[in-house]
């Protein structure tokens, strides 16, 4: 037996159960006791209905008597007016309900439009680079590789290109540190300017150019190849991000404010001497978020 049953007030409201179909009634499914029970129920309900009808008749008679006692012309008129007023109010309520429905629909439409507008605003800011998104994060990783290349790999390579025991560095302003920084600057140019225009640098080409400029290139092959591969990878990955970025070669370092560059020779003080490696700028990015240009400071001069 099931624990659950139906609520008492959900019992059928008909005065008596619907008669079973002829097929059901003659199927033997309903016993004599069941039919007697049905008749008993019916009799009880008839008694109840007669009682209810009697009560209704009595109330109707009472109302009629009351109406006869108080009946006059003005009350009839008031009643008519009242009915008219109720009718008008009812029409008004219906019209108002329609209007509210209409307004609610329009409100929902307006809300959807507003959402789309605001969402489009953010999408636009992402697409133009104004809002820093996943695309900036990808550039951020490339920036790290670029900085590593300039600050460690090329710096180490420059030490091989400008060995400490070569005396000619003493003859140029800034001495050996400036000569090594200059070598890095030239390497950055060789590695990136042509590659950005679709012609990746080759180790042989760069080595030959360096030798032509008087650098000591013997024994630099492994480091140089690694640097070339690294730079070409950076250029390739920069181009693969939907949001464009560029290396800002075209800059006059003497016009840069102190917070617009990073000193390549961090230990020194002075004024910007020359550009070692350009800033890495992502489209739409706030300038303070660019990877700042590496600048060689001319030592000994106050900023």
């Amino acid at each position, binding site marked *: 037996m099931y624990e659950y*049953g139906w609520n008492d007030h959900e019992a059928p409201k008909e005065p008596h159960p619907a008669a079973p179909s002829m097929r059901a009634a003659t199927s033997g499914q309903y016993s004599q006791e069941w039919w007697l029970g049905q008749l008993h129920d019916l009799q009880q309900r008839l008694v109840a209905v007669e009682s209810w009808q009697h009560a209704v008749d009595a109330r109707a008679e009472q109302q009629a008597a009351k109406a006869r006692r108080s009946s006059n012309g003005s009350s009839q008129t008031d009643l008519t007016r009242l009915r008219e007023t109720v009718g008008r109010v009812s029409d008004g309520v219906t019209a108002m309900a329609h209007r509210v429905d209409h307004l609610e629909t329009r409100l929902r439409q307006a809300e959807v439009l507003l959402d789309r507008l605001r969402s489009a605003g953010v999408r636009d800011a992402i697409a133009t680079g104004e809002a820093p998104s996943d695309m900036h994060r990808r550039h951020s*990783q490339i920036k790290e590789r670029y900085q590593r290349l300039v600050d*460690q790999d090329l710096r180490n390579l420059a030490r091989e290109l400008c060995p400490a025991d070569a005396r000619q560095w003493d003859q140029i302003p800034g001495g050996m540190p400036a000569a090594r920084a200059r070598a890095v600057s030239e390497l950055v140019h060789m590695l990136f300017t042509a590659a950005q225009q679709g012609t990746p640098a080759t180790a042989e080409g760069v080595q030959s150019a360096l030798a032509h400029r008087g650098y000591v290139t013997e024994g630099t092959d492994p480091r140089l190849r690694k640097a070339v591969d690294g730079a070409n990878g950076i250029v390739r990955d920069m181009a693969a991000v939907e949001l464009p970025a560029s290396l800002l070669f075209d800059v006059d370092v003497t016009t840069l404010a102190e917070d617009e560059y990073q000193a390549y020779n961090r230990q020194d003080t002075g004024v910007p001497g020359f550009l070692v490696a350009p800033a890495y700028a992502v489209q739409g990015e706030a300038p303070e978020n660019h990877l700042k240009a590496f600048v060689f400071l001319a030592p000994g001069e106050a900023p």
Partner: protein
Amino acid sequence: MTPSTRGATFKPKVIVAIDFGTHGTGFAWATVSALQDAAGHRVVVYQPFTQSGGHTYPKDLSAVLVNRAGDPVKFGERARNAWDRELARGNPQGFGYASKFKMAIHGREGKSDIPEFLGSLAGARRHTVKVLVTAMLTHVRRAALDQIGRYAVGGAAYTADEIRWCLTIPAMWTEADRQFMRTAAVSAGLPGDMERLLLVQEPEAAAVYCALNAGTVLGPDRPEGQLEVDTPGSRFMVVDCGGGTVDITSYQIRAEGVGPGQLKETRVADGDRLGSAYVNHAFVTDILSDRFGEQQLKQLIAAFPKEVGQLETEWETEKVRLVSETAVDGTPVITDTVLISIPGKIWDALDPGTRTRLTVLASGETHYIEITAHEVTTLFESVVRPILSTIERQRAAASGDGPAVGREQMLLVGGFARSTYLRDRIAQRFGHEVRVITPMDPAVAVLGGAVHFAYDPSIIWGRRSKYTYGFGCSMPFRHGIDPQEKFFIDDDGNEKCNDRFVVMARRGDLVPTDHKAVNTVAVFPKWTSVQVTIHATYAHDPDYTDEEGCEAIGKVIPDISGSVGLPTSERSLDVAFSFGTTEIEVEVCDRRSGAARRAEVAFDDLYGRGSTDRPETPQGR
């Protein structure tokens, strides 16, 4: 619950996740729209914090500077810089400085970073910690609202009440810790209700990120790959390599999963002091000590703490950018030397002998420390070896939880996971038996994953019913419990109680799509019709269908004509609730005749997924 409130399901228009970390805190956000509903194409916006050299990182330092009155005045890097300045002056204004104070919430003494409470905050107690956490969250909340407000179109900006927030918490936090965090969040102005403020475990968020974003499968070929979550019963491990600790959490994809990615946490390893900060520590104790001499280093630390800090910061930066190579036998090797520039003040303070020695070591250049490849490897190994052992132990422990299905996976996330040497060593050790995956951007895996999680929590939590759903019927009367006015004697002479609520899905329950709940109700022989009324309520355990907050949301009038006259024992109706994506189909079937009738009502899940800029789903028929 009134009809009007039930209809007002919260549908966020913006998701903001806050990763409140031991060392760094940041936020990221995403708009909710039809275009963003596809997780693979969802774009997340990060707040950049600029660091030295113009690098940006989505996290600022978890640090607060308070004035003499205890009011927070600066946060993050600015707080640290201001504190350094104040400290150099002897802190005459009585400032206080706190960092790593997240660790004071859980208080794993001796196992992880010790919170730093300095100046007027020295000896801070739990109440102060709450004030600091609240202040930090308030600061982040304001920054998030400010950033979101910048992209207003025609003056129409997203408002705070349209945002769902998500806070990340460590896996090992207790319920009391979570409550602490929730209370602090509410004090910080974040909403308190569970639909607008979600807490997600950090490794769970990272797993979501790795399941949705392509990463690299570490191994010889390094193909692209994501966390695979389609094999119920399979295991994976999240190795979160942070600044202070390395936290390892094991999960199993539920066999009874209700959708991709539902996770069952199986084991949490207490985060050990193996984070990248300890590589930095070794840099100071081993390298600086060797180069400057122990005594001179002590003097330098005392005289130039800021400059020694710069040396550490520079090493910190170079450390994760180092690229390791693979030897012929597959062993990762570091071949590059690392150059660290020495600040002028330190260089000038060094004795002449040290300066000469350093210049020779740095190929004739002054102001540099050159760290050889061998030394770099040794520094890394001081932490990498214990990390490998910890992972090994965790794997062994997880294998005791029963057989796994499919190939085991391991996710490497966190800022330290950017180190190729660490990745390659883990891949070398475990790659032959575990699928080791690292996302493209492991540093934001937790933060980005938290955004994806809050966008659609069912990714790992499954759908949870927002209401308790059921129908009304009578049940045996419970004397002394049920109200007397509900008492009646049924047609079979049994004592019954009217208006009892039969629960078909409870608020907060997991409700898989296509889940079906069935109950059977007896019908008396004479009854020719009946009405099944469907109810919903916020209450978890409703007793009666007419109690406060309970609402009738639909009805079914079944066809019971085919069983009229049968004894109660042979006459019954099966009431079935089938939970679809957005609606519940209620079917009432006469068992004897097989006649069935249906109705549909709206189904609301707890976190209201999906965008609002799509056509509305009908609310029931």
